[in-house]
Each structure stands twice: as structure tokens, then as C-alpha cells.
């Protein structure tokens, strides 16, 4: 019976009452509890209403709003900007609108085309009609409209024409950096230069890409190189400025250049980067490397003399001097008179293996390391015979890019440490790799200065900035033969020589002599003055103060004895 009692209790029932009363009791209980159920629903619906007010009204304002067209962040460009070392904008994206057609919606292709031609008269009518009648869902009509063009097209009201928001790459300095920056295609893919090399980084867009170039220096360099190129009717030119301690390219030009907004309209020659892609026999400029190797290895010192009395005959070749002295020459004299014979004999003294080892260390035997896709690999002899060693001593039989020469001269001038060339701004000098001792570098500084004061680089002299460098003139190889009147004339110089900071190079491709140069088109006449003018303009920009030549510390730093070489009996 206790189970029954439990079961009554469980149901809230009272068995002692009659059936009618029990039903009334049950209904009574149920009704009372309906109130509780109803009350819980009221709580639930009130809670929902609170949630609604909270979501619709209270959150407004202090929570980020729904994306809207006027949000400034919408204007964030797709591709990162490129800036120079001082933050000057070199390349950026501008939002534009491009016109496309949904040809399925175009009603009358011919009529639509004629209407469209009133707004964009330079479109080709036949192509336009063909596109508009193609039944395709998407056909480009014209990319990157100006706002005015967009307005005009919009007001035509032609059905099926739509605008696609795009970004267009813009280079505020136009042609100035065309070979450094390169360009992008119409879809903003990097195609050349830094745009291509850093395509991924620019797409990821973690802020602007900072290059090592300095817009002011670039402008001065380009203007002077262009002026020299015009004066001497050269077909092309290259110019470089490098920080000797960091390997940073401060300015780099290659002429002719192109408009990066319309690269397709430029001839292939204009898109060819003579500074990093072109490889040339650099001529006598290599005598600096040759002399540095001789001094470093101890196979010669400043007082060593070499026989330059007569042309040097090796196999079927004959090595001659341009300004022949026809006597024994000291090492400084070999540079000042730019003696091929003396240089060749110097190279013979340390030998081909040593020459290769040092040129390898200087990066002359490999592709230049620079963050650009346009790099040219050097042309080096294979096998490396004795005659190659002799001609390479004065820069023939090896072809390298101007960039490599500038990097090599930086190594000589900065105390002997080689650092890779770079177009990216560096914070301080990277570790680098020692090639020459500090002593060799110090002697080379004096010798380079001597070339400008006494030798072929006189025309580069700029008062107070103590340039030191070397000329180099080589005949161009055309179809495997040297052509007499087609030259590459190069002058490379570091300054100020008592404490070199920068290296400047100017190369003119096929310069012609003028009345002023007495018809000469060699480097000393055409390239050296251009380097001088560049230094005159950029030294103040780069914060280098002119110094007094009579200052004792400068005299001491640059002093060198130019003694006449004599045949020494002892050497027999």
C-alpha cells in the first residue's frame, strides 16, 4: 500500500477525496502552475527585448560600425609604397576606376560603341563593337579612367557598362628611377626592377619599402650623366654612387631610360640597365685592382720598378702603352701614365692564380649581388691563360658590370673590407669580408689621388673634395672584334680621398670627341669631368664639407712621392 501512497504523492493526488473533487484539485494545481509557466515566458521575452535593444541601439557607436563606403581604411592601397632613404615617395598606388562591359546586358553593340566613343574617342571602334557583341560577362573596355572620363561614361547611361575599382602604380619622379624601380604591368604585378624583385613583399604590404637611393643625389647624377651623354653624343651611359662603407647604392642611372608608366612604348635599349645588366671591359680602371693585389701580396711596393721600355709580346699578341714612356716605371708611375705594359708585368709577378683569387674575393667573377632581377654575369676567360692574366691586369679580356667596379673600388677605398652591393637602406655597415689590409687601402688611396692630381683624371678635380680615381677606356667588342672608334669611357672615383665616403662612376657608351676635348673621347676627357661635376653637386647634399688642401692632416694622408723609375742594376 505504501507504493500506492507514494504514487498518489508523486502526482499530488489525494485519494481520500471523491473523483470529481480530485479532478477539480488537479485542474486547480495545473492552473496555478500555468501562472508560473507564463511568468517564465514573460521573463524570456523581456530578456529577448533587452537583447534586441542592446544589439540594435546600445552597441551603436562604441563598437566598430559595419563597413561603409566612407571608411578611410577602404582607401588603403593594395601594393606597398616604395620610398627613398629619406622617406621620399618613389612609387605608390592610386585608386582608379576601370571600365568593363557585361556584354550579355549590352542592348545594341553598335549604338553603345558609338555613344562610348563620344566619351572615349581614342578607342578603336571595330574592337569596341566586337567586345560589346561578344556575349561575355566581362570584357575590359579601358583601364584606369580619369575621374572626368568616368563621369562622362557614367552619364552616357549605356547599359552593361560597369566600373571596377583598381589601383594604378604611380611613380611621382617619372623616369628618374626607372631602372631602380622597374615597373608593374596593368594588373600591378612587378615586372622589372625592385618592383619585381620585391613583388611578394610589396603585395604583403607591411608598410613602405625603403630603398638606399637618395632622390637628390639621383637627380644630380642623372642630370650630369645625361648632360655628358648629350655633349659627347654617346649612345648610352651609366652612373652610380655608392656608400663605400655599407655597399648601399645611393644613386644609379642608366641612359637612355624610360617612363615607368608606359614601359611598353620604350625601345628595348631604354629598358636595358647598363649599370647592373650590361657587362663591359672596363679597361684601365682594373689597374687599381691589379696594383692593390700586387701591394697586398707583397709582390711589389711603391718603389718597385717594371720594364716598360718596349711593347710586350706574348704569343701573337702585343701589349702597348697608349702614352708610351718607353722606360722603366715605378708603381705610382704605372698608374699615373696608365701603363698597360707595366701593369701586365706587375700581374706576372704575382701570377694568374693570385689574380683569380683576389678577383673572386672582389666579386668580379660572379654575378653582382644586388636586389634587382636585371643582373649580368661577368665574361671571364676560360681557360685562364698567362695572356689573360696580363690583359686582365689592365682591364681587357674580362667584362663586368659597372656596379661590380663601384663595389670593388669601395672595397679598396674603405680600408679593404668588401660588402655586398644593395639597393635597400642599411642601418650601419654590415660585417663584410676583408680583402685588402688597411695598409694596402691606405696606399691605394694615395695612388688614386695621385692619378687625379698628376695623371689622366685631372679633369675630375674638384677643389676641396680630394677625388681619387682611375680612368678606363676600352674599345667595344662588336661581333668579336674591337672597333676603334666605339669606346666605353669610364671614370670611377672615391672622395674625399683622405677619408673616402662615396664612390662615383660615370661610363659613357660610344662618346664622340668635341672641339673642346681636341677630338678625344677617352675617359679622362669625357667621363672624368662628369664625375667632377657630380661630386661638386652631391658632396654638399651628402654632408661632406670641403677641406683645405694645405691642412697638415690632409697632406699627411695623401702625400706620396712620384719618383722617376730607373733601371736598377741590382735587379739583374
Amino acid at each position, binding site marked *: 500500500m505504501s507504493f500506492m501512497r507514494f504514487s498518489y504523492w508523486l*502526482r499530488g493526488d489525494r*485519494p481520500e477525496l471523491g473523483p470529481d473533487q480530485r479532478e477539480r484539485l488537479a485542474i486547480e494545481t495545473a492552473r496555478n502552475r*500555468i501562472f508560473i509557466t507564463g511568468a517564465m515566458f514573460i521573463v*524570456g521575452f523581456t*530578456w*529577448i527585448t533587452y537583447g*534586441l535593444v542592446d544589439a540594435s541601439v546600445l552597441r551603436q557607436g562604441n563598437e566598430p560600425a559595419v563597413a561603409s563606403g566612407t571608411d578611410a581604411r577602404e582607401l588603403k592601397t593594395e601594393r606597398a609604397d616604395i620610398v627613398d632613404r629619406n622617406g621620399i615617395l618613389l612609387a605608390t598606388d592610386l585608386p582608379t576606376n576601370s571600365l568593363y562591359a557585361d556584354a550579355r546586358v549590352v542592348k545594341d553593340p553598335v549604338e553603345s560603341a558609338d555613344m562610348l566613343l563620344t566619351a572615349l574617342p581614342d578607342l578603336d571602334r571595330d574592337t569596341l563593337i566586337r567586345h560589346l557583341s561578344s556575349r561575355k560577362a566581362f570584357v575590359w573596355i579601358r583601364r584606369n579612367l580619369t575621374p572626368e572620363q568616368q563621369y562622362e561614361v557614367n552619364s552616357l547611361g549605356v547599359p552593361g557598362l560597369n566600373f571596377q575599382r583598381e589601383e594604378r602604380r604611380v611613380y611621382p619622379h617619372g623616369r628618374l628611377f626607372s631602372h631602380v624601380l622597374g615597373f608593374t604591368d596593368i594588373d600591378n604585378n612587378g615586372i622589372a626592377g625592385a618592383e619585381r624583385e620585391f613583388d611578394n613583399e610589396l603585395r604583403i604590404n607591411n608598410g613602405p619599402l625603403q630603398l638606399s637611393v637618395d632622390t637628390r643625389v639621383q637627380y644630380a647624377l642623372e642630370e650630369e650623366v645625361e648632360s655628358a651623354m648629350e655633349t659627347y653624343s654617346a649612345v648610352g651611359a651609366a652612373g652610380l654612387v655608392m656608400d663605400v662603407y655599407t655597399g648601399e647604392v645611393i644613386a644609379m642611372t642608366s641612359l637612355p631610360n624610360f617612363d615607368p608608366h608606359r614601359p611598353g612604348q620604350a625601345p628595348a635599349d631604354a629598358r636595358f640597365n647598363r649599370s647592373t645588366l650590361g657587362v663591359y671591359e672596363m679597361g684601365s680602371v682594373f689597374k687599381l685592382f691589379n696594383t692593390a693585389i700586387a701591394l697586398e701580396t707583397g709582390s711589389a711596393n711603391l718603389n718597385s720598378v717594371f720594364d716598360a721600355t718596349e711593347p710586350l709580346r706574348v704569343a701573337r699578341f702585343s701589349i702597348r702603352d697608349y702614352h708610351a714612356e718607353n722606360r722603366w716605371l715605378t708603381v705610382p708611375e704605372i698608374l699615373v701614365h696608365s701603363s698597360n705594359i707595366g701593369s701586365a708585368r706587375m700581374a706576372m709577378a704575382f701570377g694568374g692564380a693570385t689574380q683569380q683569387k683576389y678577383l673572386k674575393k672582389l666579386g668580379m667573377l660572379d654575378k653582382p649581388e644586388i636586389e634587382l632581377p636585371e643582373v649580368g654575369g661577368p665574361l671571364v676567360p676560360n681557360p685562364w691563360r698567362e695572356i689573360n692574366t696580363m690583359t686582365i691586369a689592365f682591364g681587357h679580356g674580362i667584362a663586368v658590370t659597372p656596379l661590380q667596379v663601384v663595389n670593388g673600388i669601395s672595397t679598396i677605398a674603405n680600408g679593404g673590407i668588401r660588402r655586398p652591393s644593395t639597393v635597400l637602406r642599411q642601418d650601419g655597415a654590415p660585417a663584410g669580408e676583408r680583402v685588402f689590409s688597411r695598409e694596402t687601402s691606405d696606399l691605394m688611396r694615395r695612388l688614386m689621388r695621385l692619378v687625379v692630381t698628376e695623371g689622366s683624371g685631372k679633369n675630375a678635380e674638384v677643389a676641396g673634395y680630394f677625388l681619387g680615381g682611375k680612368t678606363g677606356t676600352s674599345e667595344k667588342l662588336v661581333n668579336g672584334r674591337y672597333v676603334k672608334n666605339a669606346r666605353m669611357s669610364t671614370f670611377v672615383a672615391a672622395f674625399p680621398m683622405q677619408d673616402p665616403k662615396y664612390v662615383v662612376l660615370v661610363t659613357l657608351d660610344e662618346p664622340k670627341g668635341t672641339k673642346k676635348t681636341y677630338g678625344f673621347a677617352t675617359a679622362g676627357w669625357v667621363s672624368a669631368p662628369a664625375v667632377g661635376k657630380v661630386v661638386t653637386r652631391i658632396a654638399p647634399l651628402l654632408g661632406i664639407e670641403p677641406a683645405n688642401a694645405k691642412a697638415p692632416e690632409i697632406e699627411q694622408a695623401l702625400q706620396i712621392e712620384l719618383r722617376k723609375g730607373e733601371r736598377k742594376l741590382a735587379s739583374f
Partner: protein
Amino acid sequence: MKSLFGHNTNIAFSRADTSVLGIWWWTVDRWFLAAIILLMGIGALLVMSASPPVADRINVDSFHFVTRQFVFLGLAAACMFSISLLPVKWVRRLASIMFLGVIFLLIITPFIGSEIKGAVRWIHLAGVTIQPSEFLKPAFAVVVAWMFAEGRLNPNFPGYIVSSLMLALCIFLLMIQPDFGQTVVVTSIWSVQIFLAGLPIILVFCLGLGAVGLAVSAYLILPHVQSRVDRFLDPASGDNYQIERSMEAFMNGGIMGRGPGEGWVKNSIPDAHSDFIFAVAGEEFGLLFCVLVVGVFAFIIMRGLSRLMGERNLFVVLAVTGILVQFGLQAVINMASTLQLVPPKGMTLPFVSYGGSATIGIAIGMGFVLALTRKRPGE
């Protein structure tokens, strides 16, 4: 004999009309009916707003869902009206047959059903896809109410035991799908009914504790329940895409809404036409409209419950309350999860969300309510 007034007034049926429809008109709860019809109208409006972007996304005709939902609403109205004509005895019989049929369908669902989003809830029958669990709820509410009422009034009838076994069977069949949301609804119906049937308060508390225990074990045992709750408690922990867009829609709508068809956040809500249709209401019609919708739901529940105050039939009280609990709970859970007040559950907003089974299932339930709450003089 016809009343003299009948021809002079705007009333459709004379009080003296003894035809089936005449009697129905004068005995049915017309306020309740009007609220249901209003809700169906709101549903039709919102499906027109919410479903075209979804249809475009899955590459069907823009009005694919609209057309279908209109057909469903028509069928639903017809079902509701027909059922509301039935006397109490027939409601009980119809619900019992339906219950047995649905149990059969639920048993075969795991074997012949198709898997959608990780759960097997749908079966294809004679060209239509139906979700049996949507039809289970009203039938369950009526049948269990019958069991409780019998058990209460007839001490020899084991109503409590039978209803408990029915609940256990339903929970089992729902959890193998798995369908946690429907399980919650079915369990709630049963709980409210046993509560109304007179369960001692001490046991009500025990039952409450049991429910909490069940919820906790569902969290611990069922990975998808766990992940939803985790994401609700810590929004940063996982993918809350839909719920975030939903909140954004309400924010975008503000008080007055963006206007019909003018919403854009809705375009990025995958289930805008079904579980998240309330967010579309918020974006396009605004806070005031949403409050109106909440008000209609609340009115339906309160009207239904108040109608029971004069009721003398325990079975009717329990059945109607059960169905109203189903209806109200679905509405509250759906709106609360759209508003990020509770973890999201796959639950439709009655008569508003797109869905054939859900709409017709709810309509059958409302038909039961209408039939059971008709005035029965002389009973």
C-alpha cells in the same frame, strides 16, 4: 432558423448558424487565430527579404525559397484550419497516429536519411524531403498530455511511467541523429507537463537539477555541443562568423531598420533565411519591428495560456501548455541565439524561418491548440 441579425451585420457567421463552419467561428479563439495569421504574414515578408541572397549564393532562382515558403505557408494554414475543426477526441486520435508514424520515421531516418551538415535529420519520401522531428513535437505534446491526464485521474493507469518511457525513446531517437536542440524542446515539453500534472515541488527541484546535469553531460559528451558552448563563452576561441554577422545586422538596422531589401549584412549570413532570419528582420525593419515580433509571440503564448484558465479538462490543459511551450521555447531560443544571448542551436523561428517541415509541424501544433481551446459548452 436564421437570426434576423445575421443578414444585417458584417459578421461572417450568425451565432445561430449550426453549420460546421458556423460553430467553429463562434467557438474558436479568434484572437489567437489572428495572431497566428499575422505571424505567418510576417514570416512571408521576412522570407522575401532574407532568402533571395541565399538563393543567389547557391545558384538557384532568386525567388526559389520564397515560392516554396509560400506553398508551405498555404499548406500550413490548410492543416491548421482543418485540424482546428476536430473535436477533442479526434485530436487525441490524430496525435496518437501521428506519434506512431513519426516514431517509425525517426527509427528509419538513420538508415535512409541524408546527411546535411554532419547530422542525419532528413528523409526523402515520395519526392519531398521531410524532417520527422518537426512533426514529433506537437504529437508528443498531445500524447504525453493524455498519458499524464489519465495517470492523474485514473490511479490504475501507469501514465507517468508510460510518458517517461516515451520521452526516453524520443531522446534516444533524436540523439542518434544527433539533434540536441530538438531534444531540449521535447524534454522541456515533458517537464512542463509533469510539473503541471502536480509533481511535488521538491521533485520539481530534483528534476531541475537533473536537467542541469543532463546539459553538463551533453557538454562533456557531445563534441559539437561543447564547441558551440565554448565559442559562445569565449568568442575569440573559434569560428563565430554567423553570429558575428548576425549582431552586425542588428547594429546596422538600428531602431528603424534599413528598409526592406536595403540590408547588406544579411548577404553574408549563410542561414539568413532559416535560423538567422530574425537578424534580417533587425537589419531591414529595425528594433521596433523586432519588438513587435516578440510581442506577437508573447501574445500567442499568453493568450493560449489564459484561455486555459476556464478549462476543466486536465488533458486539454496539459496538451495545450505542452504545445505552447514548444512554440514559445523555440521562439525564445531562436531569438536569443540570434542575439548572442545563448549558444547557437539549430532551431527555427516558428512560422517565420524558411522550412517546410518546421512550418507545417508548427501549424499542426497550432491546429491542435485551436481545436482544444474551442469553447465546448455542455462539457
